[in-house]
Structure formats: C-alpha cells, structure tokens
C-alpha cells in the first residue's frame, strides 16, 4: 500500500484547509513543474537530458545474473553495469557486491570515516511537499533563530568537538533570505573548519555570495527524478519547479563551490530508477566539472510530526545496501553520506563497506542543541523535520567508529 501522506493538521484555518484540499484534489489548480518561476535562473546544460535519457530507458527487469557477474568482474563500470547492479537480479549477489565495494572504499579512503553534524536554523517553509514535516500545511512550532541564538547553538556544537557543520533551513526565502543564511555561514566559519549548506536552491550569484561567506559544499535533494510523481508530491511553492532544482548543483559549482551532493529521497517512487538517476546526476556533473567533489546520500522516507505512518515502502535495508554498493563500485571516488535517518546497526555496518561520512549529535529541530547536548531545559524550540533513528552523540559516535577499527576524521579540508 502506498504511503498516506495527506493529513489535515489541527489548527489550520478554514481558508487554508480549503486551499490545501484544492491543491491535493485538483491538479489543474497546480502550476506546471517544468516552467521556471520568476527570478529562477535558467542555465545552459545537457546534464538533465543525459540523465533522464538513461533513466527512461532503464528497465530493471531486463538484467540477469550474468549481467551482474560481468559487472562484478570489471574494474571500471559502465552505465549498463550500474543498471545491472541496481536491478533485482543483483539481490542474490549482495555479499559479493559488499566485498567489491569495501575494496574500492578502502583504496580511495583507507579506513577513514568523516563525521559532521547538521544545524537547522529555521523551519519556515513555503512549499507543500506532502511527505515533509516542515511543509507549510503541517501545524508545527515554527522558529527562526536569531544570529545570537545561532551563535549559541554553534558554541554548544563546537564544544562537543565537531568541526564540520551543515547549515539547513526550511525553504522560505521570505523568512530565511540569502543574507540571513550568509551571515549564519560567516558565524559558522568562526566555529567550524568546514561549512556546507542544505537550503532552497538559489541562482549562481547567490551561490557565489554564500561561497564568499565561507561555504564550499552544497547539498540539494531532488526527492524524486520521476517528474510525474514529483508533480503529485510537491503541490505548491518554488520547489514545484523540477528542473530548477535539478540544476542547483551545477549552479553551485558555477558559483565557485568546491563540492556538491545530491540524491533522491528513496521511497517516494521507483527506487531503482531514482537511485540510477541520483548516481548519474553526480556522474555527469563530475564529467562536466572534473574538479568538483561529488557526494551521494541515500535518505529514505521517515515518519514526521502529525504523520507517524510514513515509511520507505519497498526500500528495505538490503535494498539500501545494494544501492550503496552499486554507487561505490560505479563512483569509487565519490563521498557517500549516511544520515541519522538510518539505524545504529545499519550505519555501523555500512561505514565498513561503502559510506565515508556519517552525522552524529543530530537534531532536526530548531534551537534545541543545548537541551539535547546538555539536558538543559528550553521552551523555545522549533519542531523537527523528521524523526531520526540513530541519536548517538558526537563522542559516542567517535568512540564507536574507533572501536570498529575505523579512523574518525573531523576535518580534511581547507578553505582556500
């Protein structure tokens, strides 16, 4: 059974409810997802076409065990090999895939594992993405931290020892404009060695501005590469424009960023096609921008406030592991991040096979690091984007990684 995303929060006004139901029930009242909105920059790029051509042609049921065996024996994998490894035919070869992936990870990254933490600074959002806790029709405690509050959060996190931070916001340009984010990033540079952002997609000049504020890495999740599905899940807001989102990483690189990350949110649509698209998106970006550091994530759907039943459907841990091994074999040099959406046992296992970076000390709420890190009570916190699964602290994660025989690395980066 598909996820039941549509939930009416208590506390919504009658007019809001009416608009919400109209968006949900009447596709004609929704905007065209392929048409750029005012102010959204259009760049010249053939990456989208290249990725989508492969995705459209991909029929996972066509691949056989022989295709998988062939892929397992090659040192440089083709797109066809990747397709085979993502297909159902590869499922019985999961252990062999893991062995190959482990060798590639060791060759390129040794036994290092990078640690980082996300910091949500605002949860206002203008989009109606039906699966997301921050969506504008979800009745949650909204909050936007002041610069003083942001600095305090950063102090608490930096105190724990963390050196890499990912700054996040909900997608509201009105509430969290680019200068608000830029100022937060300048503060982050004071407390951390490496700063990344995961915010609404912006134009090249805004990425350039953020780069000047100290940011070098940009993460944007496409959610799903299936445009028809995308249309039914992102019902309102700037995020509806699918191609503008797709081109975000490229605009970030054009704006001078060192690296970009992306992925689909697994569980929204056909996960094999979405995984293929995610890998090829990063692959073609790196081919066009060879200096770019690329990284893949692998988020799966999680429950949210007011809808605890949301789940990743047919993407179980075995499927997720298969995807990550395929990513590693196809893109041996790419970073792979596994977030706290996944369980402790999964993360402990996958860092030995394919992942290179994991989060620790995570909160997806707003302004609650002090209460979470120190136990100090607070009554001014914003609600969370999704429920996390692995709540280990930074210290615990550091110790656990070391005890797994890995070398936790807090920073391997210089802003130049």
């Amino acid at each position, binding site marked *: 059974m598909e996820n039941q995303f549509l939930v009416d929060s208590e506390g919504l006004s009658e007019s809001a409810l009416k608009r919400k139901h109209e968006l949900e029930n009447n596709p004609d009242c929704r905007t065209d997802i392929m048409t750029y909105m005012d102010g959204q920059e259009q760049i010249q790029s053939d990456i989208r076409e290249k990725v989508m051509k492969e995705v459209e042609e991909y029929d996972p049921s066509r691949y056989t065990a022989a295709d998988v065996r062939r892929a397992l024996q090659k040192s440089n994998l083709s797109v066809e090999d990747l397709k085979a490894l993502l297909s159902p035919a590869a499922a019985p070869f999961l252990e062999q895939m893991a062995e190959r992936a482990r060798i590639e990870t*060791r*060759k*390129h*990254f*040794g*036994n*290092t594992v990078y640690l980082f933490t996300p910091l949500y600074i605002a949860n206002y959002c203008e989009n109606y993405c039906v699966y997301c806790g921050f969506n504008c029709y979800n009745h949650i405690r909204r909050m936007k931290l002041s610069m003083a509050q942001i600095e305090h959060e950063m102090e608490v996190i930096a105190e724990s*020892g963390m*050196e890499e931070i990912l700054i996040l916001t909900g997608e509201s340009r009105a509430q969290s404009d680019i200068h608000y984010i830029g100022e937060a990033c300048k503060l982050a540079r004071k407390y951390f*060695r490496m700063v990344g952002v995961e915010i609404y997609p912006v134009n090249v000049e805004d990425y350039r501005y953020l780069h000047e504020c100290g940011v070098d890495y940009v993460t944007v999740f496409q959610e799903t590469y299936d445009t028809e599905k995308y249309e039914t899940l992102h019902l309102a807001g700037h995020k509806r424009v699918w191609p503008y989102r797709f081109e975000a990483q490229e605009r970030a690189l054009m704006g001078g960023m060192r690296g970009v990350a992306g992925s689909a949110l697994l569980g929204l649509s056909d996960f094999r096609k979405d995984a293929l698209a995610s890998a090829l998106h990063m692959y073609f970006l*790196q081919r066009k921008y*060879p*200096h*770019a*550091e*690329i990284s893949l994530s692998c988020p799966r759907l999680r429950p949210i406030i007011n809808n605890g039943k949301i789940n990743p459907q047919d993407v179980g841990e075995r499927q997720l592991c298969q995807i990550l091994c395929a990513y590693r074999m196809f893109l041996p*040099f790419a970073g792979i991040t596994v977030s706290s959406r996944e369980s402790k046992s999964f993360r402990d296992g996958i860092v030995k096979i394919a992942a290179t970076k994991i989060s620790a000390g995570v909160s997806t709420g707003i302004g609650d690091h002090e209460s979470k890190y120190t136990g100090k009570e607070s009554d001014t916190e914003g609600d969370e984007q999704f429920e996390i699964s692995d709540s280990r602290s930074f210290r615990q994660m550091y110790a656990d990684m070391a005890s797994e*025989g*890995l*070398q*936790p*690395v*807090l*920073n*391997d*980066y*210089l802003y*130049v």
Partner: protein
Amino acid sequence: MNQDDKLILGGREFHSRFILGSGKYSLSLIEAAVKYAGAELITLAVRRANTKEHENILDYIPKGVTLLPNTSGARNAEEAVRIARLARELGCGDFIKIEIMRDTKYLLPDNAETVRATEILAKEGFVVMPYMYPDLNTARDLVNAGAASVMPLASPIGSNKGLATRDFIQILIDEIDLPIIVDAGIGRPSQACEAMEMGAAAVMSNTALATAGDLPVMAEAFRKAVEAGRQAYLSGLGRVLVRGASPSDTLTGFLHD
C-alpha cells in the same frame, strides 16, 4: 646498508629511501609504520592537520622524522601556494610536496600549475617536491623553477597498479639531474623494488600499506624491497637485465686494424 649512500633533499641527508604516506590509515599505526618502514620522511596533508581535534595527526609523528606536508586540495597554483604557506605557519618546516589536482576522479596532477607553484615556492625558500605526471619537458621546467626533486606518478593514485608509466619515469631518471622519487600507484614491494632498480632515488607509498592486512609487516616488506632495489642499482645490473640485447658474437669482429 651502505652508510655513504645518501639521499640529499634541500641540503638534508636521508638514509632511508622510502617515503611514507599517512593519509589513509589510523593515526595510532603511524608510529609502527615509520618504525618498520624505516622512514625518515613522512607526508602529511595540511588540510588534515588543520584540526582542533584531540587526535591531531601531528601528535602521532615520531620525533626525528622529517615532515613532508602536501598541498592536497589545491586546484591551482595559487591555492597550493596558500596551503604551503599555511604549512609553514603550522610549524611543518620548509619541505613541501606540491599536489595540484583539478580532477577528482583520478586525482591526476596538473603539470602546468605545478610548475607555476614550484617557481613561487622555491623563491620563498621552500624545499619543493612536486608531484607530477611523468613528462620530460615538465620535469625540465621544474628543474629550472627550483624544485628539489621530481615526483612522477607510477600509476593513478590509490590504484596499486604499479609502474604503468615505467618507460617515461626511466626517461626522467636518465635525463634529469635531480632525485626522481616515484610516487602514487606503487602497490607491492616488488614494484617499489623495480623502481629502485631503475635508478629512482626513492619511492613513496600510502595506499599499499593502508590496505595491507598487517600494516607494520607490509611496512617492513617495503623497507627491504627498497633497500634491495637500491643495492641492485648501485651494484650494476647483470647484462641480461640491462636495457637492449647484448649479442654473444660481437658486431665489430670484422674490423682488422
């Protein structure tokens, strides 16, 4: 080991001809790796040392070992120069290994930018050891730019594929008067040995040790291989191994006066 056979870099003498990379394994293993490899030079990514953490790599490097900080992460000459200066500020000494990559897939060095960075840093008094793709013209440019050695790659970094560029490295050994130090792609002690037999001044390895089952044992194997290769080179290889054939009947036997 012949105590008179020294590797001289930046006016400093080294007896070991094995340079240890440090980027890919646990810090706690560095000391053992240095000990068993007999290394006197150890590379260090400046970006990795740029940390507040309690596990700073600098703390794990044994006394008496010369640091060879590298500029990994630099995408052009300017960035390499900035990183080199930072290394000096961090107290890493005057040695600098230039690594400039604008390709994140194969991490192949950018020769042109490397020459530019070498020129700037040599003038600032650094002992410049540039990592490069083995090209004779670039190597000559590096000599003129003031490099202290030339570090050609054997094969793509981390690939453990050995001396894929063997013939081109041999040309550098034959034509360049600076020490030629083979870097990147050396996956086995036998490959390190072969590079030394060819006349390389030293070899460098990281991944081969990092991915070994027992790092200290592999470190020792590399030490022995490098020493064996060096001795073979110094002794003069037997004629069956020299380049080109040597026919048993002389070609000039027809000459009578």
